[in-house]
């Protein structure tokens, strides 16, 4: 077989670029996913929304006329106006500044804990599946035990004992520590089929060390699942952060998050509805956009989906 035939594989379209350098094929894969992603209008809408929200979280505090922690005592529970774009709370805090700051906090907590959850779940899930035998049995037993722990309560206790300033870090920690267990079980199941693939056997028979196989062959090949899981995990983490804060168990004053604002808003829903509406809209937009992106990514990465266009 001569080299001439190398140009006629299914990836023939990509070969021209590939002549040039090493990494181009990877770019090719990403371009492909990007192209399939872009074919779904809903996914693009989600991405645009998310970008706008992130910009808002970053730029908002700078363009607001008031800081989130400097109440305007001359304007208590005021409706939106030129000075307070989203109105003020009963304590005089500027809702625009609060929402921008709270959104940033919620996003930070959501993204950080989701990434951490994925990393922990990937390592533990694949390891349990890879070693089979008693490691798998004991590992699964431990996972099952951990699943029954009342995590909500424990997170609340952890955050309660922290101070207001670094409370959000403890909250991230709490959500992470109790959030990875379910994912680890899912990843273990996926690894079960992966570990039977010939390239994993081949590596074993070559004498490659077990953790090298896990790092080099197993985790990268779960890549698409991990990406989707991380993205959708952001929604879950934001939701639990909001729920905890809403109950007064999460972020505490002077810091703020969407849940904290919502909690402040729900008591004045009849007299000052804007306090509730602004953070609610921000929260709904955030989870909605991430969900759209997650769906779009799943279809773009899954080779069997119908993103291939028509003849």
């Amino acid at each position, binding site marked *: 077989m001569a080299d*001439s035939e190398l140009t006629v594989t299914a990836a023939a*379209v*990509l070969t021209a670029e590939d002549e040039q350098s090493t990494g181009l*094929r990877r770019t090719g894969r990403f371009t492909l996913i990007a192209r399939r992603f872009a074919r779904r209008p809903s996914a693009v809408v989600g991405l645009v929304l998310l970008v706008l929200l992130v910009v808002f979280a970053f730029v908002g505090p700078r363009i607001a006329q008031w800081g989130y922690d400097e109440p305007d005592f001359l304007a208590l529970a005021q409706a939106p106006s030129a000075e307070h774009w989203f109105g003020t709370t009963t304590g005089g805090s500027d809702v625009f500044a609060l929402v921008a700051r709270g959104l940033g906090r919620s996003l930070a907590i959501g993204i950080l804990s989701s990434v951490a959850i994925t990393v922990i779940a990937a390592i533990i899930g694949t390891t349990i599946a890879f070693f089979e035998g008693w490691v798998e049995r004991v590992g699964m037993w431990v996972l099952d035990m951990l699943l029954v722990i009342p995590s909500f309560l424990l997170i609340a206790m952890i955050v309660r004992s922290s101070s207001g300033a670094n409370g959000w870090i403890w909250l991230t920690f709490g959500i992470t520590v109790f959030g990875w267990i379910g994912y680890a079980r899912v990843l273990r199941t996926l690894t079960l089929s992966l570990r039977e693939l010939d390239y994993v056997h081949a590596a074993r028979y070559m004498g*490659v060390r077990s953790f090298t196989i896990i790092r*080099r*062959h197993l985790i*990268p*090949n779960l890549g698409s699942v991990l990406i989707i899981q991380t993205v959708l995990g952001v929604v879950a983490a934001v939701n639990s952060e909001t729920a905890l804060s809403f109950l007064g168990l999460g972020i505490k004053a002077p810091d703020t998050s969407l849940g904290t604002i919502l909690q402040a808003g729900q008591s004045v829903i009849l007299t000052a509805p804007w306090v509730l509406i602004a953070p609610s809209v921000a929260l709904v937009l955030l989870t909605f956009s991430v969900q759209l992106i997650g769906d779009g990514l799943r279809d773009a990465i899954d080779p069997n989906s119908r993103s291939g266009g028509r003849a």
Partner: protein
Amino acid sequence: MNPVLSVRDLHVSFASEAGTVRAVRGVNFDLMPGRTLGIVGESGSGKSVTSLSVMGLLDENARVEGSIRLKGTELLGLSELELSKYRGNEMAMVFQDPLSALTPVFSIGDQLAEALDLHQDLNRKQVKERSIELLDLVGIPNPAERLRAYPHQFSGGMRQRVMIAIAIANDPDVIIADEPTTALDVTIQAQVLDVLKKAQRETGAAVVMITHDLGVVAGVADDVLVMYAGRPVEQAPVDELFARPAMPYTMGLLGAVPRPDRGENRRLVPIQGNPPSLVDLPVGCPFADRCPLVEDRCRTAEPDLLPVAGRPETLAACVRADELAEQGVTFEDAYEVAEAAESTLESVPRSEREVVLEVEGLKRHFPLTKGGFLRRRVGTVKAVDGVTFDVRAGETVALVGESGSGKTTTLLEIMKLEAPQGGRVAVLGKNLEELSTRERAGLRRDLQIVFQDPMSSLDPRMPVYDVLAEPLKVHGWSRPKVNARIDELMKLVGLNPDHVDRFPSQFSGGQRQRIAIARALAVNPRLIVLDEPVSALDVSIQAGVINLLEDLQAQLGVAFLFVAHDLSVIRHISSRVAVMYLGQVVESGDTEAVFTAPRHPYTQALLSAVPLPDPQLERGRKRVVLEGDLPSPVEEIPGCRFASRCPVRATLPADDQRRCDTVLPVLTGGDDQLAACHFPLTRTSAGLTDVRETTRA
């Protein structure tokens, strides 16, 4: 006579990321009643798409153009509802995979009744009678009882029989069989092909037989259509096609198949290169880039399928067809055959060579448990139960057997390099039972493996460089040495060293298998275990890989343990062979001796079931068709495991039969050929000699 099915100018295209895939580009054929048309071609040649478009079973994203007429009625453009009047009634299909073609939740009787009720107005009693009649016809024992059985209670071969019964339920005029025996073992394949012929005789239907196996076509087809890159390139009566192919591609295909009936070690003729991408077809003949007889005019326009001068029944799509036919060119003239490499160990007799692998009485039993919480053992699966063979330096030993015979389990037991459950395994003279962890890690370098599926044996996320560097790094090679070695390896397996930065998905199946072979060779092993290394490849590509393996062995003196179910490949490549049946070696010895004069009745049956790519020999051959299926490995069989299907046992007196049933035979015989049989066949045993005579003629 009017054709029952007539296809004109059929075009099918699909959407894909890379662009429009033109899977079928202008297929024409007429199918006469009662005739069998074989459609052959390699994967991606459009043969299955053609059959699916006739049945109207293509996916929504396919665009079909042209004309398909069934007894004069145009089928293209009919709605689903209108099509279903024809499907299953006037035309029927037998699919490749009998596992997924039957619904697991309905009994066989229900599924047959469904087919009958849809197209005929019968009462319950008539349906039952007809069902029993159909099952009886396809050779299912106790049909009345089996009607109530579910698909999982049937073996693969039995399920395929049921599929055939459903297909002929309404006396169709056309039966389309899409690779009906590809998923089956050869002895079962022989049974199913017989059933299909019988079904055709009973119904008088015309059959379209789609297959990649030239042996199967030679045995069943009247006419053959060869497809390449979505177009028919040659059409001829079967004898004519095999005896005097007119198109260079057909010649190449015939030259690339190893022959199970020929001992002489003829080099196989691989066709250079790969089929073109169907997205981006070249101008001119799509075969031009691989054709040894290419001329400038081949690249200007795609040739049409036209009659060949002097051969009234042959059509070929080649500008040089007339000329080639006149000169009587065969593949030997057309294709250049590279000389085999000289072996370094040729002169050393086998008995003086070092033993690299010794397996003696190897056992591997799996407990069969039931229940979730409190597991209890309900039986033992004797996957491997007494396997004995040895491999010496520089030779190829083949393990043959049908699925379930324990070949792969044997390999895995060896590859684990751990003490076996029973028996003795020694690699390079080191008994696995006495290995220290250090020694085991060292042995890993001398023992490497190549897997069957080139898709899953390479990590899709690693470029070829990293794939090849992996074993080298494990054994502590320095970076500059690794670079030099990878360059050397790529050249050794015939790939361009500049392509090491590509990912496995950018290579074709054959090339990937070459990469897998390069990876196995990387650390200079003494023994490579090859688990069905060519069975996932098309014949033209397979020939190249087989030649490569032969050359590598000659140059490097590495020993191969070759596992395969394809006897023709084994006869071609191996010097010694061990035939396995139900976890045991029933016959072993020199390949030539075993193939020319098998002593175990199972070996004989296996050999006679292999279809020959030669229609004349195929017709003249006597087959030993085995009854029934492989017994379950859970069954306790005190005597010979083959006794339940043995054709020889049936002819023995009662006393001898009892001996077969109660006493387990051991491998006995001369040094060159051992057989585990109480009543081994001799060279003059009835029936045997004439099989061989005909195949040799």
